[in-house]
């Protein structure tokens, strides 16, 4: 995003005398023209950056700071350990006590990470200059893209509370910690340093940002709480501590101990650039020849291919790039489009990975079945991307047991048909960042609607998300995620992206369908066995009454039970219910939870993170592994299940 440039002043030569004299002369109008700084522009248009209302603004501030912290840690190869702290602040003077969180209109946000820290000179521009950052000019997957986020958050705070951004940063245990208070000079888009000093800080390394902003804290959809929870799902390698404004401390433990593979930086792919971009690159290149420019400044263009492109465009490979403009540049552009070029390299991407998605879903969402799919990389407009989808289904064994208990009471007419018709929840991510707003404008959501979930045994009414206790996870990883706006709320619709999402969802759906069918089969097998046992008693009783109580009840019951045993095949059916190798019940990358245990590779909680070389001080070893859910395959699963049900 470029700052709006200076407009051409409409200085026309004076019109012939026949025309009426304009009320304002061109000279006067020209005098009014002046440059608009990008910060001034965003001050007026803060909704473009996600600061439309106080509630959303609070979320955006937290989100921008956390995104930066995670990006920094990952780039430095450190397992992130982040603390998010929200405090309600008294409005205006410092003396009064802060109001309760739900009533407060002002909040202090403090985000602390264990990242690499920031060198002293860079602190002011990073936090108080819009469009200043490391991520815009390179094609590499990261959460932030533009270098607007955190400065915009600071600017919003400055605008609504007048308080500066406070930063503490330290790059190593040996270096001192620096404390800064900065504000943005909105006219010049330059940082103003209000205070800087060296301080003592308990952390050996990391950064802490404190913002004071106007906001509103409300739980529920698109809240800070939801953002934190969803962040953990897609980033199970993060340890996050969330101190809510209500004074609660929520600890999210690390469940996956591997940092995502560091993405490589790539050069742009020729299919992905537009004519204007090409012109600019032609001007800026260091190459002397056109062929060298093509081969050197783009990915996947070999010298031979560069010559082919030049030939197709009717240009000399020896032409000076700076001389290629106008029609020639247009021909070159067309030549590029007409040449077959290999898809861009995909090592610039770092997908979450099936195991990590499973770990995240399993930790955060209660369910009976989890699965995850990573698609192979694909390309839209020359940008490589990877789609990942996941699914958590069911209400978890605890709730199922609860329901079982409730059923012990005899049911009245009509009660049996009662079943909850909640709709599935779709959680969307772009480069591991949860997207909480504008769900219906997002291609992820549209792809969920488009999938025929009924084929997989899930109810779905026309034009709606499927119904059932289900969470659908969709993640897009790309060097450039095509958002519909600067506030990064929804992914734009490209056919290639939509197709990939649909394919991933279908695979998830197929696995869910297989799981549901198997569960249904096991259930009906169980019923088959049970049904006769239950009904024999009724039939025998009725017959006895019909025979006026003169029936040899025990004998008849015995005869019928023997027959029932023979019919259901006795113990043989147990084997039918067993496993058939592969993943849990033959499903890849899935977890199945039953009251008896968990099947599938479930990563146990990793609290004392295996220390990565770069981080000498791993988190304290608070080893409280989650007790209830332990991976464990019971061998005679079907048997034990039956036994459990019989008791029930």
């Amino acid at each position, binding site marked *: 995003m470029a700052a709006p440039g200076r407009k051409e002043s409409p200085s026309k030569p004076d019109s012939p005398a026949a025309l009426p004299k304009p009320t304002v002369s061109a000279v006067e109008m020209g005098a009014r023209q002046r440059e608009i700084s990008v910060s001034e522009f965003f001050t007026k248009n803060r909704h473009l950056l996600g600061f439309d209302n106080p509630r959303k603004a609070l979320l955006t501030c937290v989100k921008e700071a956390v995104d930066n912290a995670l990006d920094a840690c990952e780039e430095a190869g450190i397992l992130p350990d982040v603390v998010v702290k929200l405090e309600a602040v008294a409005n205006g003077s410092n003396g009064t006590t802060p109001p309760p969180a739900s009533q407060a209109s002002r909040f202090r946000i403090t985000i602390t990470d264990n990242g690499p820290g920031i060198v002293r000179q860079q602190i002011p521009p990073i936090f108080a200059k819009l469009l200043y950052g490391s991520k815009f000019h390179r094609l590499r997957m990261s959460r932030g893209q533009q270098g607007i986020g955190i400065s915009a958050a600071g600017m919003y705070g400055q605008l609504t509370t007048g308080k500066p951004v406070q930063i503490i940063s330290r790059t190593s245990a040996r270096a001192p910690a620096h404390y800064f208070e900065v504000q943005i000079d909105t006219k010049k888009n330059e940082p103003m340093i209000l205070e800087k000093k060296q301080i003592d800080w308990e952390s050996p390394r990391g950064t802490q940002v404190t913002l004071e902003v106007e906001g509103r804290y409300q739980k529920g959809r698109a809240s800070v709480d939801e953002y934190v929870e969803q962040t953990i799902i897609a980033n199970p390698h993060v340890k996050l501590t969330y101190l809510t404004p209500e004074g609660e401390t929520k600890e999210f433990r690390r469940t996956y101990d591997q940092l995502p593979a560091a993405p490589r930086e790539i050069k742009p792919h020729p299919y992905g650039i537009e004519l204007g971009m090409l012109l600019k690159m032609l001007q800026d290149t260091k190459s002397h020849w056109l062929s060298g420019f093509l081969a050197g400044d783009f990915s996947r263009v070999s010298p031979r291919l560069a010559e082919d492109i030049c030939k197709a465009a009717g240009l000399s490979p020896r032409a000076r790039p700076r001389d290629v403009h106008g029609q020639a540049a247009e021909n070159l552009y067309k030549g590029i489009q007409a040449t077959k070029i290999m898809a861009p390299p995909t090592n610039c991407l770092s997908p979450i990975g099936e195991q990590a998605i499973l770990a995240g879903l399993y930790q955060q969402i209660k369910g009976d079945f989890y699965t995850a799919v990573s698609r192979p990389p694909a390309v839209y407009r020359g940008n490589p991307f990877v789609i990942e989808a996941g699914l958590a289904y069911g209400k978890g064994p605890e709730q199922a047991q609860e329901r079982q208990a409730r059923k012990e009471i*005899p049911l009245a007419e009509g009660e049996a048909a009662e079943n909850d018709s909640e709709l599935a929840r779709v959680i969307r991510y772009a480069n591991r960042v949860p997207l909480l707003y504008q769900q219906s404008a997002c291609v992820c959501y549209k792809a969920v609607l488009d999938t025929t979930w009924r084929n997989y045994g899930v109810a779905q009414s026309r034009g709606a998300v499927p119904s059932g206790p289900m969470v659908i996870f969709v993640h897009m990883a790309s060097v450039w995620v095509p958002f519909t706006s600067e506030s990064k709320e929804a992914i734009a619709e490209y056919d290639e992206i939509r197709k990939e999402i649909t394919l991933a969802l279908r695979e998830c759906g197929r696995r869910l369908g297989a799981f549901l069918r198997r569960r249904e089969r096991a259930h009906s097998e169980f019923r088959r066995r049970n049904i006769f046992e239950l009904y024999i008693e009724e*039939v025998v009783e009725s017959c006895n*009454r019909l*025979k006026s109580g003169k029936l040899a009840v025990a004998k008849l019951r015995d005869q019928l039970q023997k027959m029932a045993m023979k019919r259901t095949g006795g113990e043989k059916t147990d084997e039918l219910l067993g496993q058939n190798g592969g993943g849990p019940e033959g499903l890849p990358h899935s977890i199945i939870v039953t009251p008896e245990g968990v099947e599938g590779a479930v990563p146990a909680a990793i609290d004392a993170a295996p220390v990565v070389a770069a981080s000498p001080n791993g988190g304290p070893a608070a080893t409280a592994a989650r007790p209830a859910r332990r991976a464990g395959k019971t061998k005679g699963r079907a048997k034990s299940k039956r036994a459990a049900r019989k008791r029930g």
Partner: protein
Amino acid sequence: MAQKARTATAVEKKLIGVADVVIHAAERRQDPTLTIPVRSLSNVTFNDRKGLIEMGKRKQARSFFNVGMAKKFMQTVLVADALCELQRANLTTSLREIYYRSKHTIKNSHENTLDTQDESDPLIEDLEVSLEALREELHVRAENAGSIVGPLVLVDDGDRVDCARLGKGGYSVPSIVEPEYLQIRQCTADFLLLVEKGTQWNRLSEDKFWRRYNCVLLTGNGQPPRGVRRLARRLHEEKRLPVYVLVDNDPWGYYIYSVIKQGSINLAFESQRMAIPKAKFVGLSSADPEAYELPRNVGIKLNDKDVARAKELLGYTWFQKKSWQAEIKRMLSSGLKYELDALANKDFQFLTKKYLPRKLKEQDWLD
């Protein structure tokens, strides 16, 4: 329960037979199975000579050791037990009470033997058919849903009921009208007029139509219940009354007529005792609007369901007479149906004073 002195009735013996099926099968280590005649259009035939719908020979087996049927089998035995209890206590009851009587939670589970009445009703019909016992004989009754008025004297529970002296409200026809419960002491009428709708029956009763034309007026308030059909049949058979049927001019009206005349598909096994093959259709015919100059605007457009139903009727073997095909096709081509009530457009008493007198005089009816 049952006193030693009392001998089991035939029906009771039949019900006990259900238990015997189970016991005998268990002795021989066989799957207990009840055979039940199929009650659907595919298993009925129209006997042209007798003019009745008769049940075919097809039967379905309901066995216990079959996952799909086990519950139904259990329920059937349960309902048989409840019916037998009625026999022994010599009580009559309703379908709904049978449902409540048989409902309980199965031991060691949260499952109910029956969840809704929809489950028990067909089972009673199954037992009726397979045991060849009428519902009345099973002591199950429906609501009193019919009225009768006219020069006839009935005896109900020993009470003498003179239907000529019951004002315009008439006598409410009980659901069980077998000779053991209801006797026809005397009847001087010349014919019986069965009216579909209670409103039109009220009109005729209020106008004392029955007195002037010396007839019995009977209504079943829509599709006539068994009691009404059975009573009409008894009057037809025992007192030789010709039966005329007056229904709305729509596919449902035609079907009501056909049920009275030939019997219904669902209860085909009872046609023998219910149907009146000589019943005549007096109206409303699709030819009437023209003959009686009913304005077009009192008609109602046939909806898709009506048209589909009319086409179904055209296919039934008992509607194959030329006159009937013409009648239904005329309605379809006009695209309109007429209610009996529409006659009021001409005059409130048009039905009593003009329509029926002319119909009877001209003997304008369909067979």
